[in-house]
């Protein structure tokens, strides 16, 4: 554990950087140019394939936390990935409680990490 502000020796820094670069991309195969979709998550631009779900695209981009639990405030990042467990609820295009694991990505989609149950408006459409 290093104290905040400590300088890292050069070779440790390169190793840490190399690790970060690797961890930033968890895709096994390149996205073909015709398949590329871009959407935003918490203000960050995310590149995805047309076949991605929001969850798979976020994991590929190194984002692991999708929501914080309404129950205990702890970070959640999906568990079943088949639309069953409720651990991947995100605010997608303004709609809270949307399962990221079974929602297909769309160009220009706006995704936000959901805090607890999220903010619901009375009469909001599905």
């Amino acid at each position, binding site marked *: 554990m290093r104290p905040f502000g400590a300088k890292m020796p050069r070779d440790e820094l390169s190793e840490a950087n190399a690790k970060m670069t*690797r*961890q930033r991309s*968890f*895709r*096994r*195969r390149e996205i073909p140019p015709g398949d590329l979709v871009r959407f935003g998550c918490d203000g960050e631009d995310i590149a995805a*394939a047309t*076949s*991605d*779900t929001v969850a*798979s695209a976020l*994991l*590929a981009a190194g984002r*692991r*936390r*999708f929501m914080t*639990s309404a129950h205990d405030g*702890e*970070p*959640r*990042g*999906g*568990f*079943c*990935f*088949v*639309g*069953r467990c409720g*651990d991947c609820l995100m605010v997608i295009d303004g709609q809270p409680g949307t399962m990221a694991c*079974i929602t*297909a990505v769309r160009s220009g989609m706006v995704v936000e990490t959901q805090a607890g149950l999220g903010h619901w408006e009375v009469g909001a459409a*599905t």
Partner: protein
Amino acid sequence: MTVAVVGSGPAGMLAAIMLAKAGRSVRLLDEQVSAGGHLTYDRYSLPGGATSEGLLAELDTGLRKCGVLPGQDSVVWGAFGTDAGFELSVNRRGAQESLTCDRVLFATGTTDRAIAVPGCTLPGVMTARAARILGERHGVVAGERFAIVGTGAHADRLAADINDWGARVEVMADIESVRRIGGQDSVQAIETVDGTTEVDVVVIAAGELPDLQLPGMLGVERAFDGELGGWRVPPGELLGGVRVIGGAALGGAWISDALRDTVQAVSAVTGADETEVEDLSIVRSLISNGREYDR
């Protein structure tokens, strides 16, 4: 006579084909985007040079030839007995349908067992099928260092697949030996009776439990199977018109057992025999051979 088949994994697809060939009106329903169940995210070889992908293609073609309409994106969220038979509540992307039918076959498959230890809700903890959906279907590897909770043939095959995806398997542990999963914002380590190891993904491959919520709603008797660690329904005809087939009946099963079970159940319903699967060569070879398959 309408027969509803809930679940379009291999058992449901085969049942729908056989029922349609026997002249029944079939409604096939499944909550996922595409038919195939585990065949859409698990790749394995089968005896005789066949593959899981080949099996899916064969079943897909079989359905189209029989004129069974695809019923994907359809969540069956309720099942009720009526005077005339059964009523299923179906939600298709927000649109509601009450489907009436004379018989229901539940081919709803299984859900992976979860784990309950401190840290089990951290991002990075996922089921075996989740790891496969990510790794095989989406080509996304969830991390670099995996722990597999679960032992046996399925866990071994998963470990080999994880290696194929370019990640390392640091730990393979029995579910009973896991003490806790550690990490701040996501998985960073796993602690078992043998010590602590740094990992960034924990995959639970410790068994599957039958999905019996819908037959349960209908009042089907269930018994707890201690060896399986979950509820089972008795085999055969239930409540006059209900059957549970495939993995949901057997408690997670080898593909050949699931298909054999399906053929037996549907033959009992239609009075037809195994000739109904004559033009499905991979299915035929699986139901008449043993259950071994390799990667």
